[in-house]
């Protein structure tokens, strides 16, 4: 390790130190929230802005959680790439974000490998605390960090006591992620919660029906999907992903979105809660969705897991399978 690395790590340890954040959280006095025995889910739409301190970042995330808790939410989802606002802790980052480098793959990878542990430390403190403060299950969104010597895009699930229940590595990469050497996960994890089974695939995982097919096979009731779409908003473009997957697999989908413009990054997306068409009053597969595709929002909706399970038991589409056909073709087409 050279002097530069030592200096950089010392600087990052200082900027990303969690002690002041812990002290800040300990001083917070938050009382309990009444859940009325119903299952209310919340999807956060988080404005992408650069924060100057871990406390500022925490307050941004906590504000959204409080809105959800006031409305009775007991499970909440945050977006993909939720570490990006934390990059505001790095001096001069706005200037770096404003410049498009010709070949940044290796540089970006090195940066993420270096920053990862510091980002993860703050992330875990923030979302574990939010879960505990509000007594909610919290999918804290995903962060791209090193694990076992590789970079992964990972979503984390926390319980109402603040404990880490489990994680999910993104299963389907984007070309940009491939370019910086992010590795895809190889398992879809399922978590048994008191009200149902949940899974937390990440963003592009919902472009591929196979993710939700596997979730359905494993008995998942709710998919919490963090997204961060780097594109101009267009209704049908944004409809791809979780909405059609919910219709095919008869699973409740909760989509949390990073939304906002910083330098060259323009994230758009409407947080929403989706269900099979037959289970939504307007017959459109939507329980609730944000009216805006930019800025902060918290979308809540009531989920009736018993009704979902009854529906699935009698659903002609789920029963209507042609296993012989799938085996005949996929045993060949899924070979590399």
């Amino acid at each position: 390790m050279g002097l530069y690395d030592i200096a950089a790590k010392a600087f990052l340890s200082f900027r990303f130190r969690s002690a002041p954040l812990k002290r800040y959280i300990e001083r917070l006095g938050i009382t309990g929230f009444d859940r009325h025995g119903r299952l209310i889910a919340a999807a956060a739409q988080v404005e992408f802005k650069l924060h100057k301190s871990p406390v500022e970042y925490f307050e941004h995330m906590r504000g959204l959680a409080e809105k959800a808790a006031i409305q009775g939410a007991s499970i909440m989802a945050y977006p993909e790439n939720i570490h990006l606002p934390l990059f505001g802790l790095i001096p001069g980052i706005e200037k770096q974000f404003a410049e498009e480098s010709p070949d940044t793959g290796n540089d970006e990878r090195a940066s993420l490998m270096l920053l990862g542990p510091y980002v993860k430390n703050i992330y875990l403190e923030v979302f574990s605390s939010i879960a505990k403060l509000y007594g909610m299950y919290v999918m804290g969104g995903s962060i791209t960090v090193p694990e076992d010597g590789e970079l992964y895009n990972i979503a984390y699930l926390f319980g109402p006591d603040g404990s880490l229940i489990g994680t999910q590595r993104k299963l389907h990469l984007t070309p940009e992620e491939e370019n910086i050497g992010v590795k895809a996960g190889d398992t879809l994890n399922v978590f048994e919660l008191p009200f149902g089974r949940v899974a937390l695939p990440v963003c592009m995982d919902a472009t591929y029906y196979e993710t939700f097919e596997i979730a359905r096979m494993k008995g998942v009731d709710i998919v919490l999907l963090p997204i961060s779409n780097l594109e101009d908003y267009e209704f049908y473009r944004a409809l791809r992903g979780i909405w059609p997957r919910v219709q095919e697999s008869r699973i409740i989908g909760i989509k949390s979105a990073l939304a906002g413009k910083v330098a060259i990054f323009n994230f758009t997306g409407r947080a929403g809660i989706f269900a099979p068409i037959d289970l939504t009053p307007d017959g459109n597969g939507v329980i609730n969705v944000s009216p805006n595709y930019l800025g902060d929002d918290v979308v809540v909706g009531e989920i009736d897991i018993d009704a979902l399970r009854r529906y699935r038991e009698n659903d002609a589409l789920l029963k209507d399978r042609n296993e012989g056909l799938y085996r005949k073709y996929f045993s060949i087409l899924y070979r590399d």
Partner: protein
Amino acid sequence: MVRVSMLQVHFKDAGRLKEDLFRYTDSLETDLLVLPPFIGSVFQDAGEYMNFFKGFSRDRKYLIVPGSFYEDGYHKAVIMLEGRVIHQQCQTHLSGPEEGYLKRGDSLDICESSIGRLGILMGNDCYHPQTGRILGLQGADIVIGLYTAEGIYNRWLQISGIWQQVQQNQFFAVECSANGYINGKWYSGRGIMHNPIWDGSDGFLEEMPENMEGLITCNLDFEKLKQLIKNYPLYRYLNKELYRKEMGY
């Protein structure tokens, strides 16, 4: 560019259908014409249906998918060129009621043609993402969708079918729907020409409202499709190792 057409008509009897068919396709210039599902129901039997459409197709230079028909316990569709059947497809997924009187097809193949590789999805096949994936991974360029939804029109239900297949497989689709009373049941659906969404497009190249009658035609821009796939090759990121492990295929 490939020029594709879709005719949306109600049909009560063979006479009226034939009149409409000749009227709408008179001087039609296209590479592919798709007709609505269940069209075979106005003919005495599959033999009469096939004979008529072989004759109709014989003098035309374009490919024709003459809707669908029942034969030997299967719901089938074919692709014809100049009087010859060049491809046949049986519906592979059945609705609850259909299970009582239909058999499932056990193949889902594509067909080489002068305008690209074609495949057919019909009835409930449209809602099952496995079907589009099977055709797409075999290299389908254009999928013909024959949409059969009973009851009052629901756009979201239709979009949960072929539209999503197009988006997650990056092929074109020509979707033709059953409309009106057919065999004692009310059907409604839109005729839609689909493309995978690219800049400046929402994925709907052309669309005809449910229960209207008429012909729609549009051009499929294969250069744009090629560019889209080059920029974002969705299949490159399939996690086949995961699928094999979790699904056992």
